[in-house]
């Protein structure tokens, strides 16, 4: 179970998530067309929409309600109506409006679909009268560090980090709580030569090192979706990840120190680290969250490591500011480890005494049990003897 929580599950889940986004960009968004026009222009629009890689014309509806029902069922993300006499009215400069109905429920895919539909229709429209005339202003929108909008790079990397953030806390919870669960504190302390500091360090260090190495490996594997990392970037991100895992292991140990058992500390870890990704600002920006939530987000190690990772996308300018977040993570690690040491040292002491007490009681109980058994056996023997002698006496009398 330890290896499962420590290594196999975080590694497996991370690779799974990276593979989930292997298509890298959103494409084939299902849309519908209600063609009421039957003109050359309508055919041209339909063909252009069908040829667009982002869109997939999944349904050509006979009427609007057919497409509406498909949107309700989730089969279409959007549909457009090519209105009656569209071509004729366009040629008469009457600017017939093409209504585009977007579901809106799936924010991301809907945004992509609408943007693409707009671009296809406006390019066909501009070819109608002003084919030779170029657009005077061209706008190019560039996403710094992730120019193609690659989801493996944007969301995948963040999710991998979120998984290891959870793993760091959960593995520490498991490791620090199972001696309590199995009543083996004395055994562990004896193995550490009676030193609590040695026991604490012996638990934390291998955990952090194993998780750190696996996290760095998965991160490097995941990063292939983006531009290759430079050596400096690799060092900065790795240092940040190490600091994050130290903070997480400290927090996990402190949860065990506070609750004293595996079930409760796992629950606390789950409540805090489970939805951490939603609070860390990569999907919905921290600056748009309410103040109290922003404070909570600041307390999560995940927020800071995602900041370090995102700064690496900005090149040399980002590197200069990344260390600030790493320092915050190191302070967090220090705080949680100090708190965990204080609480766990107390709990270990109490548990050690309890275990000794139980053992003594167990011995006493065993002695009593043995005495009882011996007494029972003795009385049984004496009864048997008495019965036998009674029988023998009766036999003699009978004779």
């Amino acid at each position, binding site marked *: 179970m330890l290896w499962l929580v420590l290594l196999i599950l975080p590694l497996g*889940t991370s690779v799974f998530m990276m593979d989930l986004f292997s298509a890298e960009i959103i494409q084939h968004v299902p849309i519908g067309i209600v063609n009421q026009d039957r003109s050359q222009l309508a055919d041209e629009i339909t063909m252009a929409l069908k040829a667009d890689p982002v869109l997939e014309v999944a349904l050509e509806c006979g009427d609007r309600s057919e497409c509406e029902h498909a949107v309700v069922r989730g089969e279409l993300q959007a549909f457009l109506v090519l209105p009656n006499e569209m071509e004729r009215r*366009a040629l008469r400069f009457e600017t017939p409006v093409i209504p585009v109905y977007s579901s809106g429920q799936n*924010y991301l895919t*809907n945004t992509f679909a609408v943007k693409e539909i707009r671009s296809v229709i406006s390019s066909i429209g501009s070819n109608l009268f002003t084919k030779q005339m170029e657009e005077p202003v061209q706008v*190019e929108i560039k996403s710094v560090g992730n120019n193609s909008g690659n989801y493996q790079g944007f969301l995948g990397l963040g999710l991998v980090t979120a998984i290891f953030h959870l793993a760091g806390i959960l593995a520490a919870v498991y490791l620090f709580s199972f001696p309590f669960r199995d009543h083996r504190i004395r055994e562990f302390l004896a193995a550490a030569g009676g030193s609590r500091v040695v026991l604490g360090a012996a638990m934390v260090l291998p955990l952090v090192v194993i998780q750190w190495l696996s996290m760095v490996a998965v991160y490097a594997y995941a990063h292939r979706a983006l531009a290759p990392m430079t050596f400096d970037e690799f060092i900065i991100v790795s240092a940040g990840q190490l600091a994050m895992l130290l903070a997480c292991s400290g927090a996990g140990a402190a949860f065990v120190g506070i609750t004293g058992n595996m079930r409760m500390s796992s629950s606390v870890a789950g409540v805090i680290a489970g*939805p951490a990704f939603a609070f860390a600002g990569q*999907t919905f920006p921290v600056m748009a969250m309410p103040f109290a939530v922003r404070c909570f987000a600041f307390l999560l190690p995940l927020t800071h490591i995602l900041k370090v990772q995102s700064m690496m996308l900005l090149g040399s300018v980002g590197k200069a500011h990344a260390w600030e977040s790493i320092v915050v993570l190191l302070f967090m690690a220090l705080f949680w480890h100090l708190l965990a040491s204080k609480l766990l040292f107390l709990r270990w002491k109490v548990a050690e005494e309890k275990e000794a007490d139980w053992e003594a009681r167990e011995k006493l109980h065993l002695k009593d049990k043995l005495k009882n058994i011996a007494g029972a056996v003795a009385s049984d023997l004496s009864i048997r003897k008495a019965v036998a002698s009674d029988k023998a006496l009766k036999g003699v009398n009978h004779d």
Partner: protein
Amino acid sequence: MIDLFKRLFKVAFAEWKLFYTDPAAVLLLVVAGVLYAFYYPTPYMNQTASKVPVAVVDLDHTVMSRDLTQMSAAAQQIDVRYVFTDIREAEDALAQEKIYGFMVIPKDMEKTLRNGGKANVNVFTHGAYVMLHGNIGTGFATCALTVGATTKVKRIALGKKVPAAKAMAMRDPIPISIQTMYNNTGSYSNYVVPSVLVLILQQTLVIGICILGGARAHRKFRKSNRDSAVENELMPYRYFGRSLAYFLHYCSFILFYHFVVYNVFDFPRRGEILPMIGFAIVFLFSVINFGMVLSQVFLRRETSMQLFLYMSIPILFLSNFSWPSDLIPTWMKGLSCLLPSTFAIPAWLTIEQRGADVYDAAVLLYPLALQAVFYLLLGLVLTNLRDGSKLKTGDM
């Protein structure tokens, strides 16, 4: 018949009592469902990320560039906090996260446009924040393209000698009008939270069932009751009685989400009674039986929690709520068919968010019903096998 129901309800009541007396069960089956429903949506309480801090790098310094800057400052999506004259200043502000994007107005833009040339306006956004990328891009692009459109209309009017109105019609002869059907405000919480609520129901229910050992008899952790009559009822009574307790308990959660959580966070409630009842029945039976199957695998009570905490993220993304299912590798799609959430999340969105009637919803409810039957049979077999085995490890 009366005896049958009496025995069934006796088991159900004993199990339901356990939800409120066993600390681990209280946390998962009572507290988590309520806590998560309020805790998870809090980051998105402002619904949208409007007025994102941005900057303009003005290399032109003309009336036109100042107009463009002012137009950008008035855009709803963005808030122009700085106007820089050097691109490096903007890059530095981006790295410090003082801004999340900037627009570069090129040198001699006005001169080029007035001379009939073409100008390129570049918008840079922070690559780590895809949602802001869309907002900033739309905000700046709309303003820059308006400048372009005005210039083009002037060029058409002068070149083709037509009135301005006709020139405008020639520039964009087939305009589009976008109507958003179900999330008019583009609210992020409305997009994410309803799906997550279904996942919360599934995860807490499955882990809760596993923590209480499903339908097995003679549960080790129930020291004082492990030999009681209710605890060791005949297997079908145990299985269906405990399932009934979970079903009724989670029906109340669905009602709570529909009437309270949706109200508090102002999500649209379009669910009709009939499809909602249909959803509750097939979804809960599918998840309960899924939990009953899994609960026979674990030896310790907390193991399921440790495993399922890792699984939440992949399970959510497998449900077609954010990443289109057509883009998911085939083997993952196959695997996802084993999870109730894969069908339940789209079904819930269809019914509650988009107001589907029972016919539209049926397409998504059939696979859930099939899952319920499959897991029911498997659950009965596994519980029977588990009852017969004599495992000495663990606390279940």
